[in-house]
């Protein structure tokens, strides 16, 4: 029975002989077989399905479950009480939601209607059709086709997750939008799958991550601002709030707004301010968490000696390679923040290479300075199964005493994060368990 320390290079190498395969060869042969790979948007698909499924999560420690369960049950019963379903064909119904309401559209789709939304749906030989007259509804289509008719246009899908919002437009906003009288606008946000929005003026196809907008008087368009679709959202499945339309100023000095228009603009302003505050709070919390985990960048000291600059470091470290005979090279110098970090790749047999570099004459000017040195190694396997060893060193040099105590601990934490970033940049294939494509 043969044993190999290295994986076989080809299938032919491990063709079983009379005595069969060793365990190592059998395992290696197995690992050589192609594996399934996720689609590029798999994470978004999971999150969309999670939003659609109302996937429950464990409560944080210390919270009781029973009150939540009771509350959910009460909410479900209340929603059911508010759900008016009447027969309108072989398989049909109407949903008028006074609070967030989940409705199964036959066994073909699920709709989650926001308060104020209204839909009528029917399942016929031609598929599932929905008439949405107002409000915002999230759809998950399990078995298409599905067509959502809105006053502003039709939305046709085959299998997807998306939202449709039908909103009335005030005279002021109407004129701002199209310069003409319009009654409604429909906003469509696609989370997964493909959606076609069309009306008598034209058609637009939307992909996951895109947003479209339709009004009765013009062809549907693909909205420019699609970032909010995947923005940090409130608790799923409530989709993110689409951006509010900008409130226009009166078109001429003599124009005066009607009291109702003033109220609408004030309400819009209030909502916008509230949304802005929410985003600012979320941003502040996000920044606080990031600093906690990544540390905060530190500014360069005003009187930093020239030897800590990028050019001097490059010159010195390259000279150190030549003087010490260590095999390797400088691959990058990160001077984006204090201190500069020199990243170098060392040959696989240079285990103490970084020590030799620092002890060389070229690095003598830094002998008494503060240092933070990280060394790491990795093995990667290329597409042919060849194993490649790579060793890296990250050297941060700074004047002794310029950063001490708590600041030094914060600096080391920040350097740890920077080194991790560098390591990931140097190792594009390290996150998976398969060789790079």
């Amino acid at each position, binding site marked *: 029975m043969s044993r190999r320390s290295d994986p076989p290079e080809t299938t032919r190498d491990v063709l079983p002989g009379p005595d069969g395969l060793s365990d190592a060869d059998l395992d290696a042969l197995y690992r050589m077989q192609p594996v399934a790979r996720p689609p590029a948007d798999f994470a978004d698909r999971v999150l969309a399905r999670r939003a659609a499924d109302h996937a429950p999560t464990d409560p944080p420690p210390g919270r009781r479950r029973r009150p939540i369960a009771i509350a959910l049950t009460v909410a479900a019963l209340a929603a059911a009480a508010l759900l008016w379903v009447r027969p309108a064909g072989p398989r049909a119904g109407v949903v008028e939601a006074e609070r967030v309401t989940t409705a199964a559209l036959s066994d073909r789709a699920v709709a989650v209607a926001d308060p104020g939304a209204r839909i009528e749906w029917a399942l016929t030989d031609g598929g599932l059709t929905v008439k949405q007259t107002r409000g915002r509804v999230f759809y998950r289509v399990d078995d298409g086709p599905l067509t959502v008719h809105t006053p502003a246009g039709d939305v046709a899908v085959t299998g997807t997750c998306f939202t449709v919002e039908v909103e009335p437009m005030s005279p002021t906003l109407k004129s701002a939008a199209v310069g003409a009288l319009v009654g409604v606008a429909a906003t469509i946000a696609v989370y997964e799958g493909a959606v076609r929005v069309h009306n008598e003026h034209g058609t637009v196809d939307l992909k996951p991550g895109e947003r479209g907008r339709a009004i009765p008087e013009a062809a549907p368009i693909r909205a420019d601002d699609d970032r909010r679709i995947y923005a940090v959202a409130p608790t799923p499945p409530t989709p993110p709030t689409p951006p509010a339309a900008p409130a226009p100023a009166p078109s001429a000095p003599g124009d005066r707004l009607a009291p109702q228009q003033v109220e609408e603009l004030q309400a819009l302003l209030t909502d916008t301010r509230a949304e802005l505050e929410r985003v600012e709070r979320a941003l502040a919390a996000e920044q606080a968490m990031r600093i906690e985990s990544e540390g905060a960048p530190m500014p360069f000291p005003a009187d930093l000696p020239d030897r800590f600059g990028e050019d001097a470091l490059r010159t010195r470290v390259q000279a150190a390679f030549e003087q010490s005979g260590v095999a390797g090279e400088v691959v990058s110098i990160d001077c984006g923040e204090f201190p500069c970090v020199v990243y170098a790749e060392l040959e696989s047999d240079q285990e103490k290479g970084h020590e030799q570099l620092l002890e060389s004459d070229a690095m003598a000017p830094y002998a008494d300075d503060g240092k933070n040195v990280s060394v790491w190694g*990795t093995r990667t396997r290329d597409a042919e199964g060849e194993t490649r060893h790579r060793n890296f060193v990250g050297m941060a040099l700074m004047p002794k005493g310029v950063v001490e105590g708590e600041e030094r601990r914060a600096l080391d934490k920040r350097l740890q994060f920077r080194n991790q970033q560098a390591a990931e940049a140097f190792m594009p294939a390290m996150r998976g*368990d398969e060789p790079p494509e």
Partner: protein
Amino acid sequence: MKPDVFASTRMTGPPPASAPTELDDHTRTRAVRGDRRACRALVRCYERRVFALIGRMLRPHGLDAAVEDIAQETFLRVFAHLGRYRADGRARLSTWILTISTRLCIDRLRKRRPATPLDDAPTAALAGGPAADRAPIGAGLEQAIAALPPDWQAVFVLRAGHELEYGEIADALDIPIGTVRSRLSRARRQLRAALGDIARGGRR
């Protein structure tokens, strides 16, 4: 030994990449709270391993179409139960996630397949199947794997495909380590015999 990730890490300063194959605790905590970006980061971190495992479990049985569905189900369960995961416990998060995938796959296979007589399984399976039109060795290996009982297949896939330790496999499948060893040994023996049959057939 992990094949491609910091297998030989050694440090003289702060660790540059303490756990590049595992999600950091901070992001995991945010994912528990439902932070969408953190949840996305979690999926991105583990999706390739999950797909690889599920594909290895289901494809030999012609269930290619179920791979993504089981993968999605895996992550939905991960999110549902992530609060129960203990980073200071024995299992790495990747092992914990692969455990969920493995159990879903075993459930799926048990629902589908009738019991297969073990003695005849590899030979019978080599007569045809979903992988019959692929390269002989790869197809033969896949068909032989398809003939294994799901529990044996899971042990082999976790060990040979994902290099889990015996103890991790035992925890994942909730079986004693001795059972892991015996199932692995039997699985390899059957696979070896099946591949030997192919080789002998090819040389005739």
